[in-house]
Each structure stands twice: as structure tokens, then as C-alpha cells.
């Protein structure tokens, strides 16, 4: 039976599921993974823009859930907790990448040959409609240039469709702060895109 055959669990059953997981019930863990893996994967993919890395982070998120479910007090929704772990893990990977890039640059100065030779290919999100793929690819390139907080808020809202209220809970900021982040993200993206197309002409 393929993994994806498990059906969606209503949110009301979440508390019971988490309680069972805290008692070490493996079927509860499986149900949590099966019903929420795409939520975690899509979030990680939006931030990391790489399918392999997103799968890796999705696995790490569920390992973390398994190890530290006792720390989940139920003060926020379980999905909010999952989003928070997914965002934190994805950011750790982005920072690691940057560190490696810097290290490769420094060792490159001393003649070592482990420098990244070429940039990764343009990212295409598999969920984007066919006629929008090329434009979305440019947009993802621009999203990469955004400051961290703007990038998180914009990606959660635009790629994962998370409402402002839940983003505020994930990021532990006010709803108006989320609105401001997304407004600034759009302004920055517009500026970057206009410069990009001006240079292309």
C-alpha cells in the first residue's frame, strides 16, 4: 500500500493523536506523518528552493517531533508547532549553505579547489501553473534576496497559503507586524524585479 493512502485527520482529533504519540504509539506517529508531510515539505521547499534539501528537512522535522513531542504543551495548534520547526530547520540549512559558500570562497583564495563552480539551476515549484512557471522562477530568484523575516512571512503566505494570524503565531510577532513584513517584501521584490528587467533590456 503506498504511503499516501492514509486519509486526512480532522483538527479535533489532533489532541488525541498528540496524546497517543506522547505515550509512544507508533500508529499515531505514522498518521501524523502521513497527514502533515506535505505541509512540512511545501514549507521547506518554498524556503530552500531545492527538492532534495526539502525532503531532508521534512525528515528532520518529523524526527524532531518524535523526539520532543513532550515539549508540545498544546498552547498553539499542532500545525503551528510543525510550521515553526520546519521554518527553523530550513533557516539553519540556509545559514549552513551560506557558511559553506563563504568557506569555499576563502579556501578558493588560497588555491583550494572546493569552490562552488556554478550556481544551482533555476528553481521551479512543481505546484505552479504551467503558464506561470517561467515568471514564478524569476520570482523565486527574487525571494532569495529578501531579508530573512520578510522571506519567511512572504513564503508562508504566498506558497503555503498560511493566513496572517497563523503566521503571527509561527513567527511570534503581531498580526500588524506580519502585514508590515509582507508589504515591505512586496516593495523589495518589485524593486528587484524592475531592476532585473531593466538590465535585461
Amino acid at each position, binding site marked *: 500500500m503506498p504511503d499516501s493512502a492514509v486519509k486526512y485527520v480532522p483538527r479535533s482529533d489532533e489532541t488525541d493523536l498528540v496524546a497517543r504519540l506522547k505515550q509512544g504509539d507508533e500508529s499515531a506517529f505514522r498518521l501524523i506523518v502521513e497527514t502533515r508531510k506535505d505541509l512540512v515539505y511545501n514549507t521547506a521547499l518554498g524556503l530552500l528552493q531545492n527538492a532534495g534539501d526539502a525532503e531532508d528537512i521534512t525528515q528532520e522535522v518529523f524526527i524532531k517531533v518524535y523526539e520532543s513531542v513532550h515539549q508540545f504543551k498544546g498552547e498553539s495548534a499542532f500545525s503551528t508547532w510543525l510550521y515553526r520547526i520546519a521554518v527553523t530547520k530550513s533557516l539553519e540549512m540556509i545559514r549552513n549553505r551560506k557558511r559553506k559558500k563563504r568557506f569555499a570562497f576563502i579556501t578558493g583564495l588560497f588555491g583550494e579547489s572546493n569552490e562552488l563552480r556554478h550556481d544551482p539551476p533555476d528553481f521551479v515549484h512543481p*505546484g505552479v501553473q504551467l503558464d506561470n512557471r517561467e515568471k514564478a522562477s524569476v520570482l523565486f530568484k527574487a525571494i532569495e534576496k529578501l531579508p530573512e523575516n520578510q522571506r519567511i512571512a512572504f513564503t508562508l503566505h504566498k*506558497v503555503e497559503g498560511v493566513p496572517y494570524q497563523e503566521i503571527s503565531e509561527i513567527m511570534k510577532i503581531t498580526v500588524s507586524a506580519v502585514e508590515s513584513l509582507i508589504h515591505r517584501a512586496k516593495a523589495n521584490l518589485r524593486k528587484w524585479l524592475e531592476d532585473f528587467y531593466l538590465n535585461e533590456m
Partner: protein
Amino acid sequence: MDAKKDISLLTDQVLNSLDGIQRAETQPFFYTRLKARMEGGELNEWNKWMSILSRPVVSLGILLVFLMINGYIIFSKMEAEKEVSMASSDYAAMQVSYLDNNPELP
């Protein structure tokens, strides 16, 4: 003027290109791969400790503590040696020769 208008229009289209996006899905048999990773030693205690120890902050911290202990041992040893030599010199000063006390003896 037209070029600027075109760019502005294109930018709007790009900014709206994520409208109607569908959620990306993991490859089939994700749970099987996850379980294999969990059982294959990713949660192994040894690996966990090694990953903590290999962090630069942790390893540099351990090195610093090691150097501090080393320094403390060397310093306290030097202090002890100093005390011993002072005590022995005091003792040496107390050893008065018999002749010193009896200068009239031949």
C-alpha cells in the same frame, strides 16, 4: 516610456505568478524512508554526541577548558615548588653549625 510601462506590467505579472499554486507533495513512500533513517542510526546516541562535539563552539570550548585546567595544574605545581624551596631554605638557615655556637673551641 513604453518600456517602463512594459516592465511595470511584467513585474505585476511576476508578482502574481504564485496565484493558484498547488501544495508540493513528497515522493511516494516517505514514511518508509523516514523510518529507515530513524532506525538506521540517525538517532543513535553516539552519532548525536559526535555531532554535538564536532560543533566548532563546543570543540573550542572543550579545548579552552582543557588549556585552563592545564594552566591551573602547572601554576599550582610551580607554587608548590616555590613553597618547598622556601621551606628548605628556612630549614637550611636553622641548621647552625656546632662550630658557630662554640667559637672558642680549637
